[in-house]
């Protein structure tokens, strides 16, 4: 009997593998004892991805960075690894069942995205900043899904946001971890002038920050563009809130590229070469997927259909 493989599951497995690999390289460079936790969490995430309706089980872990002071690699694990199965669960939920009051869900989600963006604008603690960033991206995924479900375009909007967020968000997490010397400086203003500590990784951090801002030419812009274009067809109000959210997100994420480039030059630091190469690869992915949006559409509609 031939089992039909759900190609979206393959896509999410690939995204989870990229995140796992990135965090593994980070742990190898900075804290090898954390690899055990990473492996346990990674295996749990892969297994949960197989059992779709339980894929949300890990998601309470995403709240931990807000309540508990934890080491930087744990923040990354708790934010990135549960986010991907959760996005898969939401995709399955929206594609198999009809959600009532879908317009209201989309509107409410857009307001929550704005609210988390505002909290992020005024946050100086990197832990909480990353928590707000991760949470609002998950709500962006929910917004994409509700707009996609309302417009009947789940094939495009279903996975585009999580695809782009995994690449840009992982790069953001990794490069800030390197620049902050594995969480030695956990306040945003302490990152002043740290572009000069490690120019390659700081450049990666700047590009991922600009991508999360939604700058045209980088990958997150593509998903935001599709979202707003389709949302405008079903309800222009969602686009209005979306544009407001984009404005707030600009202020929130632009803090990082800005703060890295101003201030006195800081002494240079040594970084793992493998990790830097991985970051540069992610950086290229951000740029290529941004410059060629049709590549994303091809991936989502032809390859992973």
């Amino acid at each position: 009997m031939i089992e039909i493989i759900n190609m979206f599951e393959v896509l999410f497995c690939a995204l989870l593998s990229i995140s796992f690999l990135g965090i593994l390289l980070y742990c190898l460079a900075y804290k090898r004892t954390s690899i055990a936790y990473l492996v346990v969490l990674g295996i749990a995430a892969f297994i949960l991805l197989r059992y779709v309706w339980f894929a949300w089980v890990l998601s309470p872990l995403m709240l931990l960075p807000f309540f508990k002071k934890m080491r930087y690699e744990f923040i990354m694990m708790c934010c990135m690894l549960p986010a991907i199965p959760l996005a898969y669960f939401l995709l399955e939920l929206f594609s198999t069942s009809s959600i009532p009051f879908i317009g209201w869900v989309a509107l409410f989600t857009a307001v929550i995205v704005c609210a988390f963006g505002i909290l992020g604008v005024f946050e100086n603690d990197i832990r909480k900043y990353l928590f707000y960033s991760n949470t609002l991206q998950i709500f962006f995924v929910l917004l994409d899904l509700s707009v996609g479900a309302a417009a009947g375009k789940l094939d495009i909007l279903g996975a585009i946001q999580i695809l782009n967020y995994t690449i840009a968000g992982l790069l953001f997490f990794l490069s800030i971890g390197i620049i902050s010397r594995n969480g030695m400086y956990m306040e945003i203003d302490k990152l002043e002038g740290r572009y000069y500590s490690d120019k390659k990784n700081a450049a990666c951090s700047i590009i991922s920050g600009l991508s999360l801002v939604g700058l045209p030419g980088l990958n997150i812009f593509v998903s935001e563009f599709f979202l707003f274009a389709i949302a405008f067809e079903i309800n222009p109000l969602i686009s209005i809130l979306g544009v407001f959210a984009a404005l707030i997100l600009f202020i929130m994420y632009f803090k990082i590229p800005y703060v890295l480039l101003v201030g006195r030059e800081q002494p240079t630091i040594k970084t793992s070469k493998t990790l830097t190469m991985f970051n540069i690869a992610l950086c290229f992915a951000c740029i290529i997927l941004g410059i060629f949006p049709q590549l994303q559409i091809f991936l989502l509609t032809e390859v992973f259909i």
Partner: protein
Amino acid sequence: MKKKESTYLGGEADSPEKVAPRIFEHFLSKKAMFGVLAMISAFAVLVMLWM
């Protein structure tokens, strides 16, 4: 001990080493931004109910 003043980027207000501009804190405050968000969402809810 002098209380740390809040700035846009969270730097200490009187430290000469901080070069981050504080232009935003004159225009943006958390309350004002949440106020704008509340206004936009109230408008959106009204229009949705009307539609």
